[in-house]
């Protein structure tokens, strides 16, 4: 019986050229597909959000907008419920929640995305350097990395922001450095795995240079797990930046950002305002959908990623 299965697998294997890279088929479940749709939706908002926003993010709306026809009382504009004038109500200063969400998408997603890219640039570069470099280099980088990992990230950010002030470039720089530590760990272990493989040995015997091995053998082989990890890291960074904003250390007013929108409008909860709920939902839909896509992909890559996340 084993003979039959073996010959079967032989024939299927030679349907394509033996040295062709294996085709990667990713079939997403309904959860993953929903995730992709939500992600595309937010990407569009990031692109055109400020253009379709009914008001400017810092605009405190006029009382006259909310005047009941016929009445002559000026109503309070803060924590207005949703209506035809403000589709998602107003916040604690009487600003339009919808417009702030649309502007905030660019701030929150933009900052997090650039910070993730930055973390990857540092983490992957150093991680591969540690994987292919000398033992001393590996040792030095790894200990430095352990040290960064050992300091709670929020605390590290807290001290640095207290020392240097809270500006958006600093926020991106800092978040990138903090999260580069975990990217380093993964890139290094993935790189090491590839470095000891037979095909790298073959390439070395052929006389290929280190740069050739890195770009042609290592990077293509670690790209897929790194891409999946990118999704996870992106979620962590969104949550991290939101937490910083929530503590009042992240994005500064009057710019809108989803984390600080939750914080500013917390008192509104008591009056039943949806102003703090809407940005919370915005964060949640974005992060949950990215995680659902990542989950789907890692389930199809044989749980290898799950294993790596644990160790």
């Amino acid at each position: 019986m084993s003979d039959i299965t073996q010959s079967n697998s032989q024939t299927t294997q030679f349907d394509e050229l033996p040295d062709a890279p294996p085709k990667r088929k990713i079939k997403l479940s309904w959860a993953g597909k929903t995730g992709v749709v939500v992600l595309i939706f937010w990407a569009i908002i990031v692109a055109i959000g400020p253009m379709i926003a009914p008001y400017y993010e810092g605009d405190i709306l006029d009382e006259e907008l909310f005047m009941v026809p016929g009445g002559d009382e000026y109503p309070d504009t803060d924590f207005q419920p949703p209506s035809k004038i403000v589709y998602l109500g107003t916040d604690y200063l009487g600003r339009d929640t919808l417009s702030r969400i649309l502007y905030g998408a660019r701030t929150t997603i933009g900052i997090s995305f650039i910070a993730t890219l930055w973390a990857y640039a540092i983490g992957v570069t150093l991680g591969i350097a540690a994987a292919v470099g000398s033992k001393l280099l590996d040792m030095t980088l790894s200990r430095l990395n352990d040290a960064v990992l050992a300091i709670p990230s929020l605390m590290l950010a807290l001290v640095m922001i207290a020392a240097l002030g809270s500006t958006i470039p600093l926020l991106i720089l800092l978040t990138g450095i903090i999260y580069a530590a975990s990217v380093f760990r993964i890139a290094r272990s993935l790189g090491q795995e590839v470095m000891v493989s037979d095909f790298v040995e073959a390439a070395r015997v052929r006389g290929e240079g280190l740069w050739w091995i890195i770009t042609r053998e290592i990077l293509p082989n670690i790209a897929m797990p790194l891409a999946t990890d990118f999704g996870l890291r992106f979620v962590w960074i969104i949550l991290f930046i939101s937490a910083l904003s929530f503590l009042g250390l992240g994005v500064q007013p009057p710019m809108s950002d989803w984390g600080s929108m939750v914080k500013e409008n917390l008192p509104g909860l008591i009056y039943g305002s949806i102003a703090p709920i809407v940005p919370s939902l915005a964060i949640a839909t974005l992060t949950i959908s990215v995680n659902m896509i990542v989950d789907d992909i890692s389930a199809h890559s044989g749980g290898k990623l799950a294993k790596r996340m644990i160790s």
Partner: protein
Amino acid sequence: MLWRAVVGRIGISIVTLWVVSLMIFGMTNLLPGDIAQIMLGQMATPENTAALREKLGLDKPAHIQYLVWLGNVAMGDLGISKAGLGAGLGTPIVEMLGPRAFNTLRLTVWVSVIAIPVSLAIGLIAAMHPGTRLDRTVTFSTLSLISVPDFLVATFLVLIFAVYLGWLPSIVFLRGGESGWLLIKTLAMPILTLVIVVSAQIIRMTRATVLNVMSSPYIEMAILKGVPRRKIILRHALLNAIGPIVNVIALNLAWLVGGVVVVETIFAYPGLAKLMIEAVLLRDPPLVQACAMIFCTVYVVLIFIADMASILSNPRLRHPK
């Protein structure tokens, strides 16, 4: 061989701590403001500021200051809190840390006692029935929980229990000396928040770990020879998954000690993380250094425990390549 591995890990931990101390010292020196001037307040004249700087050793170059500080910390002397206490006096940091550390410890112990058994059980049950509706419910809800910010979980709990139901206070106000029912009520909200956040992680990882072990050849063998599924999980899979699971728990506990910042802030809980935030805001470098060192030490120790657990549970790791 086992001892060599243990000693090696201890060495790595110590080196890590040393690098951490360097980084912390460097970072706190970036904090703006002259401490001597802050301490003297309105009484600061150029002469007595200089005198105080000399007394505190601030006139020495940074590397000497670092060595003095490191020596003191190694001897258990964390120094004197410098800011916000008028001229010269200041409180020894060890005294300030005591009650705060007790509070954070109390929170962490409660959370672990509740979260670890519950989430291990849920993770195991989900892994026993993969693909069922129960498993999908668990997977989806934990995925959602790890995707939302922890301040959101806290906010919704406040909304439900403090605003609508009115059962629990929305901030923690510890007078000291509470006991029994009152204490439980006061601590319930921060504990619940942390339990939810931490459990979601542990459940996911327990499930993933057990499922991962379930795909190994010896489990296949056990299935083929007809061992019932429940027995396979409890006798074969779980025992082999203990190492990774302890790892996950240790990592989550480490997160708990440092990551409580948001929760302690929301509920105004007087713990270590809040003390450190206050210290940063008050520009009190010695206190920041002390708190940071405590957090990092706890983290390094927990990671060490996690490493040890995986070495002990997996004989193959006892012989490092």
